[in-house]
């Protein structure tokens, strides 16, 4: 009362003024272009497509054009066209691949649902954020060449998640290979029999972690 509240307020601002010079807890600003704040691993901003190999990204995309993400994307910013032919994937199995894979990043709202529903760990969320551009259509409509980034990049931005995904994938591939080997053995053993076992099923969708 009688101005004591005002004086108290002045004391607090004076304290903060002094504190901003010596107390890092008070001056929390990160001066952006020179310094950048540490991005947590979970940070997500726009999807990218994981390819196994940096040299040949288009040949080693994990995506098999199953179109689940296209269906589930809430703002429907993904457009996929399946290929007519098949290409061997990382484990050498013949797979359909996306002939067209486009993401309209001006529509995308970074919700990560495409990542959650992808059964092949083929689409992941990126860490980029300096993506301002002055052109609406050519630069924001990303096609598969823009989207493809190698697995090593994935390891770089999300080491924990990438390690977990890689472990799971190698385990699955090993299992598939063993199954195929067993199938081949069985085939060789029962060469006379006409019916060949069906090709190995695609790896099962990962359980929700």
């Amino acid at each position, binding site marked *: 009362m009688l101005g004591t*509240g005002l004086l108290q307020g002045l004391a607090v601002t004076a304290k903060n003024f002094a504190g901003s010079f010596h107390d890092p807890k008070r001056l929390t600003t990160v001066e952006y272009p020179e310094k950048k704040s540490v991005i947590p691993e979970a940070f997500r901003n726009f999807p990218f497509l994981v390819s196994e190999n940096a040299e040949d990204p288009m040949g080693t995309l994990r995506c098999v054009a199953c179109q689940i993400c296209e269906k589930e994307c809430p703002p429907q910013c993904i457009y996929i066209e399946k290929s007519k032919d098949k290409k061997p994937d990382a484990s050498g199995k013949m797979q359909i691949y996306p002939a067209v894979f486009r993401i309209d990043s001006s529509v995308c709202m970074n919700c990560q649902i495409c990542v959650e529903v992808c059964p092949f760990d083929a689409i992941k969320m990126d860490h980029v954020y300096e993506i301002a551009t002055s052109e609406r259509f050519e630069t924001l409509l990303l096609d598969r060449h823009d989207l493809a980034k190698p697995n090593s990049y994935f390891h770089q931005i999300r080491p924990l998640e990438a390690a977990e995904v890689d472990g799971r994938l190698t385990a699955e591939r090993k299992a598939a290979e063993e199954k195929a080997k067993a199938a081949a053995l069985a085939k060789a053993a029962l060469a006379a029999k006409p019916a060949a076992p069906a090709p190995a099923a695609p790896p099962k969708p990962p359980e929700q972690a």
Partner: protein
Amino acid sequence: MSPFDASPLSPSGGAHVRSVVDEFHGDLLEVSMGPHHPSTHGVFRMIVTLDGERIVKLKPVLGYLHRNHEKIGESTSYLGSMPYTDRLDYLNAMTNNWAYALAVERLGGLAVPERAEYLRVILAELSRLQNHVCLAGFLLQDTGASGTPLMYAFREREKILELFESLSGSRMMCNFQRFGGCRTDASSEWLGQVSSLVNGFGAFLDEFEELITGNEILMARTQGVGVMKGPAAVSAGITGPMLRACGVGYDIRKVDAYGIYPRFTFRVPIGSHGDTYDRYMIRILEMRESIGILQQALRDIPAGPIMDPKAKLRGFRPKPGESYGRIEGPKGEIGFYLISDGSANPYRYRVRPPSFVNLTLLEDLCLGHTIADSVVILGSIDIVLGEVDR
């Protein structure tokens, strides 16, 4: 009758002021405040009729941010609506997510594991902290406090947002809750960060209150301004801190006991005057209670799964039926009403937005006050236009 017509609720002698309008027709100044106005909290517009500086009529104009949220919800899968709920009250994605998840869980009969319930409480209370701290900052900004309280508030909010980011991947558009649990688990070091933040938050609140709560100018600007009476508030459907500031001790965390809230001991502060100062102070006091809840939750959080194994994200088709999930959001009762016809999309998707309902009494609160008060009253209602317009 539209809530903006002359109503018997009028708490501030509005009826009398109206008669003055008739006497001096045509000599009043009509000012269109917004949608481009520094203090309308987004794209809100008030058509204010002024007699000198005194408000004799106020007509809110809504809808500048309308984007068909409810209709989109009816054509999107249950999962697909979750990120849209982030964008309702974009300060409180976590609580919006929870309310929507609650509605879907009730529709699909899903259980939520223990750990997920604790995580939800922690995130909801953190969300409450950062919402209230923002509100206090914005309200003081509206009284003209040159940004200092707002900056202090945002400094603390930033810490909470960073926690949200490291858990959910996004600062504001968290999209974190799922039906039957949460999307990712919180690491123990994340919980440790939360607990150090929570332990430091009390000191911040003390400093903030020392800065401004006892300030005579603030008291002069807010005490007795925009007085709302309890019965009027109840009949207008007002919820949250707005309602509690007029002395009605109604808190869905206590009344509805959703989630695991009955396990925590906390008090519900209520005001006695129903004016802007009470609305401000109730939020400050609620933050102190939230700190208590957070400390209990962080102490008790068990290990275990975070998703109901029955829950499935893709192709979720609940049985035909309807459900209403509501929680005590920072701004009031945020509820989602869903009707399922057994398909992958809800047949009806309806949001009960606290901001919008709380806004209905704006004219009654402002009548007879000055144009400067109208800005402060609007600030004390705590609206987010993403939720008002949907």
